[in-house]
């Protein structure tokens, strides 16, 4: 366990990327920030720039216009980096699987670390998913769990 991993997991900054979603997952992500759920107690902060982010939260059924932009944003992320797919659309495209404008699922575009299912997932599910991500990472680097 290095100081980098320690610092990394103490304060995960997240960047939110909508790739043709229906807003519901995006609103639930925002909901995590508000007083009732308050995700900031885990040291997470929604950041405005991909260059400050540790985690990329992706929602939506990856549409053609977004594919090159997702790749570009992923390349711009500083390492170590994590990707979380939120909602059924980002997992498998849900009802949009036969849409002419959504040719690929997200994990064929960029590698994904955690999948959070639901349409939309509740804020509690999003928080649980992110905590699992931290625990998994800590287990890999030999730190105590949350």
């Amino acid at each position, binding site marked *: 366990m290095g100081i980098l991993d320690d610092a990394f997991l103490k304060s995960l900054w997240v*960047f*939110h*990327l*909508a*790739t*043709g*979603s*229906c*807003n*519901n*997952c*995006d*609103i*639930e992500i*925002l*909901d995590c920030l*508000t*007083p*009732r759920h308050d995700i900031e107690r885990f040291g997470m902060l*929604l*950041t*405005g*720039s*991909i260059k400050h982010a540790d985690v990329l939260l992706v929602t*939506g*059924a990856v*549409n053609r*216009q*977004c594919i090159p*932009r997702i790749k570009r*944003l992923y390349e711009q992320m500083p390492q170590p980096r994590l990707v979380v797919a939120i909602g059924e659309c980002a997992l498998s495209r*849900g*009802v*949009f699987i*036969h*849409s*002419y*404008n*959504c040719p690929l699922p997200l994990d064929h575009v960029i590698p994904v670390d955690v999948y959070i299912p639901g*349409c*939309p997932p*509740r804020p509690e599910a999003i928080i649980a998913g992110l905590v699992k991500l931290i625990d998994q990472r800590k287990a890999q680097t030999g730190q105590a769990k949350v």
Partner: protein
Amino acid sequence: MPRTIVPIGPYHPLQEEPEFFILTVEGETVVDIDLQIGYNHRGIEKLSERKTYDQVTFVVERVCGICSTSHPFAYTQAVEDLISVEAPPRAKFIRTIIAEGERLHSHLLWLGLAGHFLGYNTIFMWAWKLREEILDVMEILSGNRNNYAMFKVGGVWRDIQAQDIPQVLKKIESIIPTLEKLKKAVIDDPVLHARTKGIGILSKEAAIDYGAVGPTARASGVDRDIRKNCPYGAYDQIDWDMIVTQNGDVFDKVVIRINEMFESIKIIQQCLARLPQGPIDCVIKDIPPGEGIGHIEAPRGECFHYVRSDGTNRPVRHKIRAPTFMNLPTFKETVIGGTISDAAIVLAAIDPCYCCTERMAVRNRKGQTLWTGEDLIRLSQEKTAQIKTQMGQS
């Protein structure tokens, strides 16, 4: 004066959909705006053609997560118009309750985001905290926080249980004092007045010409509300007022949305008190060939669906028009002529919720010189030095 282009988007934090605005500015003033959309295009109209009539209600629910009642509502109205049936009275009341609950949470969501864009985060936290209460109400009524899955052609899927009604009424009642407080905090705030009054004015003529709908049009004095003019659901049996203001600026759009929330509470209370007994859906055997139109008032304006059938169990054509499709082009009227610092709130005022935060690149109109970060730092240092000398002189 040299013209520069300021791109906003397609990805910026705290917004729902990716969308790309290209602002051309002269100094501080915006002189042109170009919009590029299509980052959210999922081809739902085509998808609809391969689903059965009952499945389409669930697909159109995913057109927009915030309007997840409006689209199924308009779609079921269209199919009912096609078959010439009407939903039973109890179903109409339940539909109205769900639609107004959605309007409440959607307007609170917008109010919070608008506060956030202005740098007034207190409003953001207050409004979203209040919104959670309404989502609780929706969870009691429908079983879901969003995507209520209540609508079906000819009625609703789920009844409202009698034992839930007192609980819901109590929750709705408890929202009112907080909403009053929020209203005072917003409408009487001098900073908000300074930031929103007289900004981004959409004239009445322009609103009609652009075909603007919903609060965007009503803020400009266009007294059109589908709920009043073309009543559907239970709106013609309920006592409520249409809110219209005259100035067309951002402040008026805030006022309209806040006052509409009180009307929504009024409608929900009346509907729950007068909920008629009876069945919640009617039997529909088959869908004849023909065409139907349904339009309803979504939180953002009129939502329009057109369905054509050829007698099979799938629609041949299903046209969906969301309210923002008509409201977005009005940016050409409202943003041009204002300053770049006002652009964020003006773009947000029609409720697609956009802000410009990070991710800015300044480029010369001719596209020859790209200003690097160092250039920008140098410019800002020059400007600070200039201000310092001015202050020293004065």
